[in-house]
């Protein structure tokens, strides 16, 4: 109703009709978004006057595009992706990063582990076509050339590894390695972030115009605040988040054991000293500079510091490192 709501749609009020916003996730539902589910489930968004719809991602979802087109207010993305989108004419801004460390990893089987970049030489690495530039950049950073490693086109299907079609698989730390572990297969993960390849990941991404419009900026702040609160709850009890994920999305086919394992594993990359000190989702200027250098390696043009904006985080953590 547009008539006479008592607070007249005040910017930060928790009363009045909740503003409907869409929050685009980066993949299908799983505990990967456990903090967000907690925020949703415990009414943290609602308390902040938001009626949040969580849009699942998937193999055929263009997350950034959904934000650019206005279908979503904010999406979860990755820095190089955002830079690419901007190079193609989007004007997206990263206002936070859920992961403190890139989850990109090269997974190998424990009986033939790949533990350092040098181990890749002469090996077959499964990598999706979309990730090939990332692997190339990683090799370059470590002084290797592409012809020293055999790239095998594959998707995020761990069976290629177990079936022996590849020696290592380019994937995500909290995803396939967990699946392997749950299946009772010992694997080894080599985080690329530990060897210089560390694009900012699970970034909170919004349109620059959303930050300039007062009302929407306010919604962004509330959304980020609510989400951060959710992740704070998550940090305290990741297993509860896993249970919630399984329960809230009964049709997603989630397995509780796997979810709990994943929930614990991803703590490593989501929380760090920086988050202790500044708050969940924090990023530093050093990280920005490092990412910009990485973009050059990846051949992405036109990215500058302007692609990041910490003012929302500043606002959320005005009173200290808890949202």
């Amino acid at each position, binding site marked *: 109703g547009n008539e006479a709501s008592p607070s007249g749609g005040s910017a930060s009020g928790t009363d009045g009709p909740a503003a409907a916003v869409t929050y685009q996730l980066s993949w299908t539902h799983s505990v990967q978004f456990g903090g967000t589910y907690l925020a949703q489930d415990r009414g943290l968004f609602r308390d902040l006057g938001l009626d949040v719809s969580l849009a699942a991602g998937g193999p055929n979802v263009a997350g950034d*595009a959904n934000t650019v087109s206005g279908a979503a207010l904010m999406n979860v993305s990755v820095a190089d992706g955002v830079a690419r989108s901007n190079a193609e004419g989007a004007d997206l801004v990263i206002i936070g990063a859920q992961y403190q460390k890139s989850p990109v990893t090269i997974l190998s089987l424990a009986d033939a582990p790949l533990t350092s970049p040098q181990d890749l030489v002469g090996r077959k690495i499964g990598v999706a076509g979309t990730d090939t530039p990332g692997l190339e950049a990683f090799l370059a950073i470590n002084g290797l050339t592409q012809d020293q490693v055999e790239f095998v086109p594959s998707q*995020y299907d761990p069976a290629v590894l177990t079936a022996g079609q590849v020696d290592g698989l380019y994937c995500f730390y909290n995803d396939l390695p967990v699946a392997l572990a749950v299946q009772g297969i010992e694997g080894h993960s080599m985080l690329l972030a530990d060897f210089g390849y560390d694009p900012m990941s699970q970034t909170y991404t919004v349109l620059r115009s959303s930050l300039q419009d007062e009302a929407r900026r306010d919604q962004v702040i509330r959304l980020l605040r609510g989400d951060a609160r959710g992740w704070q709850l998550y940090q305290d009890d990741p297993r509860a988040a896993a249970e919630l994920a399984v329960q809230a999305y009964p049709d*997603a086919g989630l397995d509780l054991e796997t979810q709990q394992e994943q929930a614990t594993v991803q703590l490593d990359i989501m929380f760090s000293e920086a988050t202790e000190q500044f708050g969940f989702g924090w990023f530093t200027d050093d990280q920005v500079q490092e990412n910009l250098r990485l973009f050059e390696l990846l051949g992405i043009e036109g990215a500058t510091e302007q692609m990041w904006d910490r003012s929302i985080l500043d606002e959320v953590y005005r009173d200290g490192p808890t949202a």
Partner: protein
Amino acid sequence: MVLQGEQAVQATGRDGDGPRPARARPAAALRVLLGWVLVIGLWELVGRTVLADRHLIGVPSGILGTLVENADVYGRGLWFTTREAMIGYLAGNVAAVALALLVVLLPGLERTVLRLALVVYCLPLVALGPLLRLAYGFGDGPQVTLAALAVYYLTLVPLLVGMRAVPRSWLDLTATYGRGRWTTLVTVRARAALPYLMAGLQASVPAAFLGALVGEFTGAERGIGVLSIQALRSLDTDGLWALMILSAVVSMIGYVLVSFIARRLAPEQPTVLLATPGADPRRPAWRRWLVSAGGVALTAAIVLLAWAGLFWLLDLNPYFAKRPWDVWEWLVSAPTAAEHRAELFTAASQTALVAVPGYFAGLALGVLLAAAFSLSARVRRALTPVAVALRCVPIIAIAPLLVAALGRGSFGTAVVVALMTFFPTLVSCLYGLGRLPGQVADVFAAYATPRTRVLVLGRLPAMAPAFFAAARIAAPTALLAATVAEWLATGTGLGNMMAVDAATSRYTSLWSTVVVVTLMALAGYALVEAVERRVLAVVAPEQSRW
């Protein structure tokens, strides 16, 4: 000897299909049962020994366990996907019938309608999925739409062939009373097209299911597609196989249901379709060229207008939803256009190298299977489920297995393309082989011609219209299949390019690639059509005019 006697009578089509002696039935059932037990036992054995721990295939016991354990989750997922598929199936087939009616009533539109239909059918999922999600928001919209899109072309093409499969004398009948196209459609064509319509309806059952399933990759919250992504990534091979088996079973049920209805609906024997070869005076070559060039231009104009108009109407953001002029700039007017073209050309030739052999392999596989099915009911019963399963299982789910079996080379990818293409050909040809006119069958019977010979000399020519309908469908399908195979296995060609473009937000490049894929499909289609015209002018002249 007994077999041949049975066959000779069957060829007359009158009383060959009598019930088999009752005592044979339990024995046959036992044999079938034993066969299954053997197959499943072997499967379990292989899964547990040679392929143990490789997570390439699920094993029967594990699959069964998963099915029981997740009965309610899988059951619900199956229901969601099935519902999407059913709605899409209905919508797509209604659209096909509507388009066919339009063409029959305004035959001048045939070429244009078919080309436009082809363009829509060829839109790759990578481009279409996100668009649909943007247009529909949350919900089942994209799944249903993709199911409908996967279906309508499979029905439209054979339906039009069927509408033409009438002898001159029946058309003369309505003409005698001065009736127009509508009456002819209602009294003659509609009924005559029934077998072809049923072929389309049957071939599109698994297509609808697969369409809905991959539709769920566009960010759906539930359904078999979502569950299978989950199973795939958690190395839950048994679960994945359980899901795929469920999909196959549902498709199978739909397929059998439609074929049951088909048998009920079209019991009369096909008649000889006498029609004189092209009686219209041949127009000079330059005029024919002009007309077809005009047609192509018209189609292009309509596509471009619809493209720009639709995006404008839906107010789609130009960042993602590129317009025709963006593609023009990318491919032609931009300073770097030459590079873009070169890149596209390389990719397109790689794709063609996979798609063309795959196309022919798929076609051949379809025809050969259809021939085998028509020769032996036993082969048909045994292989139909396999064929349906191969068609409705998303290739992404069994890609590692296929790669393990076939390798990543062009042979493997061509086989994948063939596997994804053959099914509509199989169904269409099966129906086509049944179009042997009763009188002609009698002639063969008079010489006790063996089945194989009847097949070659009678059934194959009678199948020609259905076969070419399938060949026209297979052209764009093979191309789309090739792009999928490239994306999954070879990491080359247009398929990989589209995936990378989508992942790296190179949307102008993506749309340009889509345009190239569409143009290639149109070109392939035109080639098939040209061959078809020549062959059918001799074998089935009734197909060359309305």
